[in-house]
């Protein structure tokens, strides 16, 4: 990647980085006040790098190692409530251990940003990627998105703060990335300057809710159960508003950092005139895009649609992109035991988004890459072929050893 002359002012340097390095770099750039940590692969990579920043004097922040993920997320939540910009993160079962805290961070509407280094829910001691950990918060009031490359991981973390802290939103945001494939792979990343990030991201201001001796407030008191439904409605409206905030955040990001995020929510590769489209999230997108391009060169009308933001769900974008496609296949790095049609999680959201559109495509589901199993070019090609084939079953397992 060549850094253009005019970009020099907004970029500090280009460096070979893993996905977790890139997130740590973003956390430094947003100048967090509090970093709460508890080690778990692959999240540990962020801890390592941030510890080095603080030790080297590159970042002035409280680095608090908690006694477990539950406390870790409580620390993040509380820091956020006193007006400190905070960062937390975890993976797999660690993320689940923090779940009580994760739930109330959302209902308290605190704009904490977290990394979920996707990891299988452990037994048998697995730490390869599965998306079930992050997807568990899809309905709790967290914003949720997936990064596919190290550069995107850095960019998205910056954008996540901007969206989460926006007074129109004030919801926590989780940036998910595939354990191993992204967290342990080193790519060249353009690192913005601190000044440019400051232009993009205003100071964190929680307004009237900020807990401070000068502004005594009691957050989340057990006052009146009767308030709950009205509070949920507020949250619901904020989630709806977040779509516009995300759009404008990406517009500004593109203009400051000369990046080319065309649509913040989805990323299309040859989708426009395709008959057959695969949909996926995370690092599988890299392989799928490459295969989609390759098959186009062979004259096959195939495309790939990557979902970047999963909450808020890109309903309109998906409808628009897929309504006139004949066959849609979904690459799922997750499982949903006993779900409708025995499909995995994202199929259900995608199908309901398409249900009310006039010409909805035939949808098939591929459960693939669980526990870090590779999703190779060969397998993506197979999924394209199966999607195009009207006779293939509703749900197939790809890459499974029979």
């Amino acid at each position, binding site marked *: 990647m060549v850094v253009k002359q005019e970009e020099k002012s907004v970029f500090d340097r280009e460096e070979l980085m893993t996905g977790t390095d890139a997130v740590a770099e973003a956390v430094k750039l947003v100048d967090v006040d509090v970093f709460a940590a508890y080690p778990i692969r692959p999240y540990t990579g962020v801890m390592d790098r941030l510890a080095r920043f603080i030790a080297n004097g590159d970042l002035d922040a409280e680095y608090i190692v908690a006694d477990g993920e539950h406390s870790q997320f409580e620390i993040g939540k509380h820091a956020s409530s006193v007006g400190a910009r905070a960062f937390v993160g975890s993976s797999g079962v660690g993320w689940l251990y923090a779940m009580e805290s994760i739930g109330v961070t959302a209902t308290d509407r605190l704009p904490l940003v977290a990394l979920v280094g996707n990891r299988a829910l452990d037994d048998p001691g697995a730490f390869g990627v599965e998306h079930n950990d992050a997807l568990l918060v899809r309905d709790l009031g967290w914003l949720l998105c997936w990064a596919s490359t190290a550069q995107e991981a850095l960019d998205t973390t910056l954008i996540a703060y901007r969206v989460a802290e926006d007074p129109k939103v004030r919801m926590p945001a989780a940036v998910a990335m595939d354990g191993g494939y992204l967290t342990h792979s*080193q790519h060249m990343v353009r690192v913005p300057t601190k000044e440019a990030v400051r232009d993009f991201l205003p100071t964190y201001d929680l307004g009237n809710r900020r807990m401070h001796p000068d502004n005594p407030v009691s957050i989340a008191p057990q006052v009146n159960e009767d308030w709950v439904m009205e509070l949920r409605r507020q949250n619901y409206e904020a989630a709806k508003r977040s779509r516009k905030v995300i759009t404008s955040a990406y517009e500004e990001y593109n203009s400051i950092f000369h990046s080319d995020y065309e649509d913040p929510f989805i990323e299309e590769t040859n989708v426009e005139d395709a008959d057959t489209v695969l949909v996926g999230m995370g690092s599988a997108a890299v392989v799928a895009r490459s295969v989609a391009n390759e098959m186009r060169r062979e004259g096959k009308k195939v495309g790939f649609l990557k979902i970047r933001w999963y909450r808020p769900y890109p309903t309109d974008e998906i409808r628009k992109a897929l309504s006139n496609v004949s066959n849609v296949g979904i690459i799922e790095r997750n499982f949903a035991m006993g779900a409708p049609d025995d499909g995995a999680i994202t199929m259900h959201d995608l199908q309901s988004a398409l249900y009310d559109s006039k010409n909805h495509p035939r949808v098939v589901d591929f459960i693939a890459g669980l526990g870090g199993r590779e999703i190779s070019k060969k397998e993506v090609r197979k999924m394209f072929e199966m999607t195009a084939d009207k006779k293939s079953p509703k749900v197939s397992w790809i890459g499974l050893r029979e």
Partner: protein
Amino acid sequence: MMQTQKPHLIRLEVNYRGIFQKTLAYHISGDVVYAAHKEGKTAFSNGRYSDDPQRNGIPCANFAYFSKDLTEEDLEAEASASMDITEAEVVVVLDDTMVKGLEPWGGYGIRPINEKVVKDGVVLIVSNRKPADLIAQMEKKKFPYRIAILPGEASFAGLWYFKDDMTDVRVLGAIAKVAPEIASIDTVANYVASKYKSKEKAAAARKAYEEVKVSTVNAGEGIDWPYPKPILPGWKDFDEGVYVKGVKRGFQMGPRGQNRNPDFKRGTSKTQRPVVRFDLCTKCTLCWYDCPDEVFDPTTDGLYDVNYEYCTGCGRCAEVCPVEDCIVMVDELKFENQDSPYVLYKKDPENYVKWAEDKKGKERLMPSPVTGKGSTVSKVETPKPFKKGVVK
């Protein structure tokens, strides 16, 4: 239009010892990517995720990929959708004792160091040994490939409290020699000079380029690999739920008398093994008592046999043994098998002692208790004579 030509792709693997060489390996796999970038190539690197957190001495691997014509995304799709690779044009080995085999995890088996090297590819080993000695422990291949020896010891320089011995840049220089299509020596030396702001480091890279000796390994040279390849189970091969059968309790006096886990032996973690002078042993039990991996088998005569298949070479037994020169750690590459030393001793005590002293040599390496001070070498001019009649 069909794509017929295979894209240009070079895959490099860096084999290293967990923890001790982790930083060193990351420097090498990262720096070689930067160097290739300087020549306008597409390149990136990754670590084998399943190795994380690269525990002490466990054989681990990093990879780097290079292409002249692929975009970064296409290269990634081509090369690294998988967490381990099956083929490599360049295999770097940072510790020569790894030629005896690699067993990073349970269920992986003990795999040959040259398993992934392709025809005409190269295995680049940091070693002070002759190629023939190393090939004699490696699996025979059906095709010719090259072996390159960069003179040097297994380096600990990646650990911050060890002195920089320039192994990182020396390996880069050697890579430029054996695989100039990744980056030329000039590119490497210039990159090293600018990154480390050190003429000495650039000179070390250039010197390594000259020093590295490359020779051809013919088809059929090497050994028949003694370890079976693991069979990966299908989904119907398991019982339901997550469990594996435990090791059945079993204990008998004598060599290999204790039941141990057959699926993960960890013996390939060792760079040295304890050589025992049974004739000097006072039967104090400390080696057996202190061994963290429980590799000592009690025998009916009160001596303790060593099961080298499970020994990780930590040196604890040699440290606690109160008798001078009774247990001494010796370079693992000097040994051809994992046979029971006790059985050898019982067969012919005097000859065993002669053999043991020959393996031990005249030098004893002792790491300094103060980190960063390296190790001290003491000389043993006359080995302790064979002591008759200890075993009753």
